[in-house]
């Protein structure tokens, strides 16, 4: 079953439009029905698979001038029905799952690279393209990207 989130109710993890940080020209097919990336059981869908995402970060992310921090950084966002992304939000924690403030040199690089990814594959429901929430979690070890999830 492909479950959607109707805006009539509040939903865990909803990302509402924020005019201070979000693009005004980022259009959703249906603001009232944003799915989760796993609702179709296909998981993360990117041109060249997740390997292509990992390769982008490997190529661009620089760990030389960042603090040797450890923990997780999650960047969650919306992929619209055209495969474009926006409404990026960051969550950070140490390995004890406690919120911490990460070195901006780490989070800003991760955010900028995430924003630059253009291979998101639109998902569809009953033959119609749908908008969905996606996230990337970066496991950071000594300031370097150790793993990328999901």
């Amino acid at each position, binding site marked *: 079953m492909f479950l959607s989130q109707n805006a009539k109710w509040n939903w865990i993890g909803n990302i509402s439009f924020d005019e201070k940080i979000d693009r005004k020209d980022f259009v959703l097919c249906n603001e009232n029905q944003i799915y989760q990336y796993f609702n179709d059981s296909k*998981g993360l869908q990117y041109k060249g*698979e997740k390997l292509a995402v990992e390769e982008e970060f490997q190529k661009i992310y620089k760990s030389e001038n960042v603090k040797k921090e450890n923990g997780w950084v*999650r960047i969650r966002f919306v992929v619209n029905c055209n495969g474009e992304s926006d409404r990026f939000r960051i969550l950070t924690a140490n390995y004890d*799952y406690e919120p911490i403030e990460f070195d901006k040199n780490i989070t800003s690089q991760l955010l900028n690279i995430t924003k630059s990814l253009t291979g998101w594959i639109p998902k569809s429901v009953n033959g119609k393209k749908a908008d969905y929430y996606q996230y990337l979690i970066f496991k950071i070890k000594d300031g370097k990207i150790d793993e990328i999830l*999901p």
Partner: protein
Amino acid sequence: MEKSTKYCLSFQLILVAFFTYGQSLNCNVFRLEGDSLKYKACEKATQTLKSFYQFDQRFHDGLSAAIKIAPNFDYPYKEQSVAYLKSGDFVSWKKLIDKSVELNPKGNLGYRGWCRYQFFRDYEGAIQDIEALEKIYPTGYLGYSVNGDYELRIAKALCYSAIGQKEKALSIIENQLAKKDHNVGLYDYYQLGVTYFELNKYDKALENFEKQSKVYDFAENIYFRSKVSKIRNKDYLDLKKAALIAYDDGKTMLEGYTHHFNKVYRKQITEL
């Protein structure tokens, strides 16, 4: 008697794992035990699960009401944690799942351990949880991962492998596979084969990839057989081609939420 009790408890563990994805608890258990508060909370929780999607605020409100009825009942905390887990909110998830483990370690340690591994690649944390569960059931059956792919000791072995303790991983998998009552999982021999491969033990690696092919052959397993052939200067191209065909047919390590340990992508097969 003791053994049968352990198996009975293990069976309960498996049931708890299934409940996590929305199946109902039998609340009558609490009524029979004379715990009317847990019974009432259980009824409220299961009714909520039937009515709303995990991400719906009403789902969370219903479970909060169940917690209010019986604050020492682990189940509503665990169910509340799932939406946070699936949306990658490690902070909120951990608070809720910790509460459920605190209230019912036997029922929830294995689940938390698996989730730490699957969703956050928290290998050390997962090992800690599974080993804590083993202390409770030192010789008994621990149960399976939530997705059913791995017995929990094998899941623990994957974590040891990920942090570089390959020999330890091998020993755990071999011991588990040697048990008469072990049901061979979908990827057990593959993971064992890859671990041998990483230690350059190609005979043992191949032996296990071949065993795997009898259980379920898939692109990654064929890819590694091809790699062994290439290392030994034997013809590997037919296997490479077979791996690509299997991949394109969807016979690959699929995962709806995250990615499998030792997953191989199509591009990596083409580059062999």
